[in-house]
């Protein structure tokens, strides 16, 4: 799949605009689906010598309804397929024609409604005549990809066979079965209610020992579809964790990045779906997931400078998420994750630099991890300063809201560590950046800026003069009427920015408040 992706047909300029437009539509449809918690996508493995500049990206081609004439031909095809007196070559040709017809939604719908059609197809699918079986499998695959649920569910009687064939040895055939299963698995609760008792998890657990890249990638796809199910945390993930699958996933995620990038992508998303469901992360931690992820991220960071690898963000994103969530595992569960490798810090900044322009979503994922690393461990706070990464962090402040918030939070994490840290922050010109964020309108962003200002002044009261000289007081006063912020604004003003005409008593008490409590 991955290798085919990179050699995809690239349309010319006019087709490019159309492609962009379609992509925007796809994207907004996906966003809407996700907000309704109905994010479902299917994959299509299709040989199509008719693919031209339109590059139909797996979308159901709208066709005219089948005429009566065509329906008649269809029935004929089915009849001929039943008739085993016909030679295998002839039947294979008929099946190919059927398959091409089944690329269209209307045809799919009509086909599944024809009496006996699925039984014929499944019968051919279980034939021991290899090329017939393969062609029938391709037909089933087209049906599984349908956006019409009734069409996909018509494939249900085939699932026990699809699972049986996973223990076969034909790479291409097994791959096809896997993608078909993956498409069906994501279809509905009802399908999964059948797949689970039929033993899909044990079947996958055996299949994952295959050495073939194509099979492994397909397997990763099936697993990722199962793990995204709504009922996954209660019904599916416990079964997966109970099997040998996690150990193999960890192995596959980190091995063979050159050839198996597609494989690594699939299994890293699988790991993410498991970790973010918080079912039993302690088990994964005991299997060494943390060090695996750290080493893998380091390797990816060192790869980036060497070659432009398209699609690297698809792999890095879930890995970052896993690590962040694992770091946030509840201590009461018995396992507080500690990471000590500062090179991870370097890797994160290299990722942010690399992806800032093209895939900004990755920046917030990196910052999330950065927050979790700097929250408790002073080692990372110290490293950010000594590696001179503050300027880079400050450059992120004017980005999206989430990025700004997270960057400010990281700065707060660092400032909270004490005077030595605040001193360094001040030296690296945090104040001017802070002043710009104070000028923003978003209440939460300004609130976080105030927290940072408070921490800086708490540990470094002399910074107050610098703040004032840069029109800081005016920046503060902008928010004194905001109910969310006014208390904090007032506290800051009273503590650090009393006017020069203030009484000596209040001055003295102000500086007393600034001393660290013993």
């Amino acid at each position, binding site marked *: 799949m991955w290798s085919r992706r990179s050699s995809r047909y690239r349309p010319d300029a006019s087709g490019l605009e159309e492609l962009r437009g379609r992509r925007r539509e796809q994207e907004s449809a996906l*966003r809407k689906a996700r907000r309704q918690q109905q994010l479902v996508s299917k994959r299509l493995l299709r040989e199509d010598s008719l693919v031209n500049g339109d590059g139909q990206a797996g979308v159901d081609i709208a066709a005219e309804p089948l005429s009566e004439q065509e329906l008649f031909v269809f029935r004929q095809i089915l009849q001929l397929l039943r008739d085993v*007196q016909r030679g295998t070559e002839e039947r294979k040709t008929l099946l190919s024609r059927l398959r091409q017809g089944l690329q269209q939604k209307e045809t799919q719908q009509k086909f599944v409604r024809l009496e006996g059609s699925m039984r014929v197809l499944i019968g051919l699918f279980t034939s021991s005549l290899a090329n017939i079986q393969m062609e029938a499998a391709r037909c089933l695959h087209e049906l599984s990809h349908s956006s019409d649920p009734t069409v996909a569910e018509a494939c249900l009687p085939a699932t026990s066979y699809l699972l049986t064939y996973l223990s076969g040895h034909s790479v291409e055939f097994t791959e096809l079965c896997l993608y078909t299963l993956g498409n069906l698995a994501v279809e509905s609760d009802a399908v999964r209610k059948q797949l689970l008792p039929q033993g899909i998890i044990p079947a996958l657990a055996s299949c994952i020992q295959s050495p073939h890249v194509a099979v492994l990638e397909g397997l990763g796809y099936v697993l990722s579809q199962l793990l995204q199910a709504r009922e996954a945390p209660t019904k599916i993930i416990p079964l997966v964790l109970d099997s040998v699958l996690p150990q193999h996933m960890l192995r596959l995620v980190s091995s063979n990045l050159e050839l198996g990038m597609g494989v690594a992508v699939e299994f890293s998303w699988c790991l993410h779906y498991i970790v973010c469901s918080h079912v039993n992360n302690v088990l994964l931690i005991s299997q060494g997931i943390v060090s695996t992820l750290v080493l893998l991220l380091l390797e990816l960071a060192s790869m980036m400078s060497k070659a432009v690898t398209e699609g690297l963000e698809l792999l890095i994103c879930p890995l970052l998420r896993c690590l962040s969530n694992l770091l946030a595992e509840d201590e009461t569960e018995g396992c507080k994750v500690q990471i000590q490798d500062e090179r991870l810090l370097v890797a994160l900044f290299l990722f942010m630099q690399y992806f800032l322009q093209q895939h900004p979503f990755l920046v917030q994922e990196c910052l999330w991890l950065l927050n979790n690393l700097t929250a408790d461990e002073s080692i990372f706070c*110290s490293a950010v300063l000594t590696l001179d990464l503050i300027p880079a962090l400050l450059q992120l402040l004017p980005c999206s809201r989430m990025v700004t918030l997270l960057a400010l939070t990281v700065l707060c994490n660092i400032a909270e560590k004490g005077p030595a840290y605040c001193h360094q922050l001040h030296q690296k010109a945090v104040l001017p950046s802070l002043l710009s964020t104070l000028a923003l309108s978003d209440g939460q962003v300004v609130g976080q800026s105030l927290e940072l200002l408070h921490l800086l002044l708490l540990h470094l009261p002399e910074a107050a003069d610098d703040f004032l000289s840069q029109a800081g007081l005016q920046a503060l006063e902008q928010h004194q009427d905001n109910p969310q912020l006014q208390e904090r604004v007032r506290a800051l003003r009273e503590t650090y920015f009393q006017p020069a005409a203030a009484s000596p008593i209040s001055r003295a008490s102000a500086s007393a408040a600034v001393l660290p409590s013993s």
Partner: protein
Amino acid sequence: MLLPPELSVSLRVERPLLPVWPRTPPRAPFCFSPSRLRFHRQHEFFEDGDIHRHLYLQDILTNVTEVTERSKVSEFCCHIVGCCQVFDTLEGYEHHYNTLHRNMCSFCKRSFPSGHLLDTHILEWHDSLFQIMAEKQNMYQCLVEGCAEKFKSSKDRKDHLVKVHLYPSDFRFDKPKKAKSSTKHSKPPSKLDVSMPMDVNVETYEQLQVDSMEICPSESMENPTQPVSGPISSLQEKKLYKSRIPSTVCFGQGASRGFKSMKKKV
């Protein structure tokens, strides 16, 4: 982004740790306290990345002219004696071999999709010891991988498959053994299920099978080149290997077909 020029992941230098102030709770009205953030699967924080992932899933379309794996070779024949299939791709041949020849019972010539099903078949159909033991204890193993249940009879097992594992009641690879075991009348693998109207006509299929699949015992000793990936231990494999190759059987009333080599192939 302004990164220091020498920044590299490979650099691992001991860095001085700045002294840390003891942590104190936040002073009101300030509320910040460093904490590790945790997001659950449906959190909106994941939206952008998830969308990206799904765009990737949806954008795949293979183009056969670009696929290099499916290279064509000059036509060649299946090397199993008696099988005259011709191929022009390695994948086509591989699939044919795996479907028809790889897991084939040498007693009755049935093909199975996996070594596991073949072994089960041989045990239940061709092992007389099995029949004896089955009278005393539950010997019929559930076909679903991971399920350790055993049953008294083939029918009990089928009921279990249907009820618990939601298998179709006409599952092809679970046919009860027929009373008549003579090969002339024994029916080919599950093509004869009467509930499937489009099934192969018995005679035609048997003809097809006998013509294309007959293998002489010595030939069938050929080891498939790919290792079996199942959990069969080598000892068990040896034992089963023996039972798959009856020493004296030759089908078709003694008529020899194809090349009958006298020397054993390793």
